């Protein structure tokens, strides 16, 4: 059983069961090759039941598992100007965007929401690797800013799950400018005295790692996540250096002093609740069967 049984009444649980994946489908674990039922995999937060490999999880699934009762309110992200450079490689950038929207059912590569975790109100942002490699363009920049601004308005901590291949090349220099832009967002949070907790998930690379994803008050990573600026292939191609086993993986970074913790996904929620509440100097988290949130949620997770 997962955490939901501890916290959620069946009534609320039914709110988000309507989009559950059909259970007659399989996913093959890319790490150990075990065939896993979709339902089984979803219940295990997309962690392989056989080898503990952490597969990518969509922001929406992440939120459902993270927020009390799976209930959260999405926060609007201001729309940036579309295709600011008129970029075209082998495909037009707007066509690539449309394809990603169709494939993921999401608007862009980051989702922002607010709600409660262990009765602690928080704002959470999560990057979607399946949307153009989670790449950071102006929308993602706007999302980080929107998350920070909401957190400041409501005096809530911000928890951010990163996942990205890097900057959105199709937005050229404007994607690079999201590095300073999101850094301003982090500074605003810190100046407001609010905790900013980053959870680095597989993979987090390039300009994302070199900006908001490395500026957390607390830096946690999921097991075996690839976290780097220059990826192993680039290093091998340009410098020809031989790279050790586990290089740039979460545990390797932990050993080299670059992270606070590496935490299994099944323990992440409890840990985030605990850390946030301590940083906020709140009472210890309540364990066991919590009642549903007192106020009716504005909007349930879609």
């Amino acid at each position: 059983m997962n955490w939901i049984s501890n916290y959620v009444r069946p009534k609320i649980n039914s709110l988000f069961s309507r989009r559950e994946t059909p259970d007659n489908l399989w996913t093959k674990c890319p790490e150990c090759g075990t065939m896993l039922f979709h339902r089984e995999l979803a219940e295990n937060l997309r962690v392989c039941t056989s080898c503990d490999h952490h597969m990518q999880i969509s922001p929406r699934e992440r939120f459902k598992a993270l927020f009390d009762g799976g209930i959260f309110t999405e926060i609007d992200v201001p729309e940036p100007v579309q295709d600011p450079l008129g970029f075209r490689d082998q495909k037009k950038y707007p066509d690539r965007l449309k394809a990603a929207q169709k494939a993921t059912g999401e608007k862009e590569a980051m989702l922002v929401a607010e709600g409660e975790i262990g009765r602690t109100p928080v704002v959470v942002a999560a990057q979607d690797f399946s949307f153009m490699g989670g790449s950071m363009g102006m929308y993602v920049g706007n999302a980080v800013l929107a998350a920070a601004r909401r957190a400041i308005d409501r005096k809530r901590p911000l928890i951010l799950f990163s996942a990205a291949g890097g900057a959105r090349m199709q937005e050229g220099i404007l994607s690079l400018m999201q590095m300073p832009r999101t850094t301003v967002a982090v500074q605003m949070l810190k100046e407001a005295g609010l905790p900013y907790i980053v959870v680095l998930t597989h993979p987090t690379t390039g300009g994302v790692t070199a900006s908001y994803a490395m500026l957390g008050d607390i830096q946690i990573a999921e097991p075996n996540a690839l976290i780097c600026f220059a990826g192993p292939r680039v290093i091998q191609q340009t410098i020809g250096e031989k790279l050790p086993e586990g290089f740039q993986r979460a545990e390797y970074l932990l050993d080299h002093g670059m992270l606070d913790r590496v935490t299994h996904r099944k323990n992440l929620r409890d840990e985030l609740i605990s850390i946030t509440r301590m940083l906020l100097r709140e009472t210890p988290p309540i364990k066991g069967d919590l009642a549903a949130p007192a106020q009716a949620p504005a909007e349930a997770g879609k």
Partner: protein
Amino acid sequence: MNNYLEFEKPLAEIEGKAEELRALARANEEMDVEKEAAALDRKAEALLRDLYANLSPWRKCQVARHPDRPHCKDYIDALFTEFTSLAGDRNFADDLAVMGGLARFDGTPVMVIGHEKGHNTRTRIERNFGMARPEGYRKAIRLMGLADRFGLPIISLVDTVGAYPGKGAEERGQSEAIARSTEKCLQVKVPLISIIIGEGGSGGAVAFATANRVAMLEHSVYTVISPEGCASILWKDAEKMREAAEALRLTAQDLERLGVADMVIPEPLGGAQRDREATIRAVGAAIGRMLKELQKKKPEQLLRERRQKYLDIGAAGLAA
């Protein structure tokens, strides 16, 4: 003797011929070649004007990388007095890819920081071709903090292909170092001026170029990824760098339109490498103007405006 770029080959031929003629005349006093040589000179100049009037983005990348362009050290030597290099990150090492120290600009004490690529094999290796390791950013963070405490304006000279893609650099937290350096740029309450003098490569450039004013030399470039890298990822063919350079909008002119660069500093005909002194003078004049303007502002205002600038960037795309 000029180092010619590939697209300058026709120019090399003409200039080579003129030089040959003059060499012949020097060896043989009876020969009068000046008229012919002068005609070749005029032809060369016309061609140069033609080539540089409309440089394609890819050609601009080549000019920006030209080994004979003035580098950070050349600017420091010529434009600053009392340069006192300050070394080390107080943690691991001194990164020679990043120069930094106290100096006076026009009498005013400032902190100057920049990437130095080196000018011959020995210095290039010593400087790691201007590719900083984490220690370079951490040195810069330290120097920016020092400048902030004593109210000294910061001038950064950006010229790097990017961060160093090496094992040690990654192990020692290259990403974190870049992120902290950018963060430092957005924390100091002194004027921060950045000049892209050659290549502004990705995060390695952002770490120093997050400034109140960003000026770019006419043929410099500033980009999220090298055209070669972009081509190999999006076109799956590194040879498509021309197309990628075009699509990325990495020229000083495009960046000014996008509001990333605040000004473009004109280069001499044929690029900075053809007249290094004139280029250095032009950069000096630009620094002087920007410094004068920013020194009128209060510390809080400098910080607020710098942050606002980055919050606003890109709002209108190329239509700006």
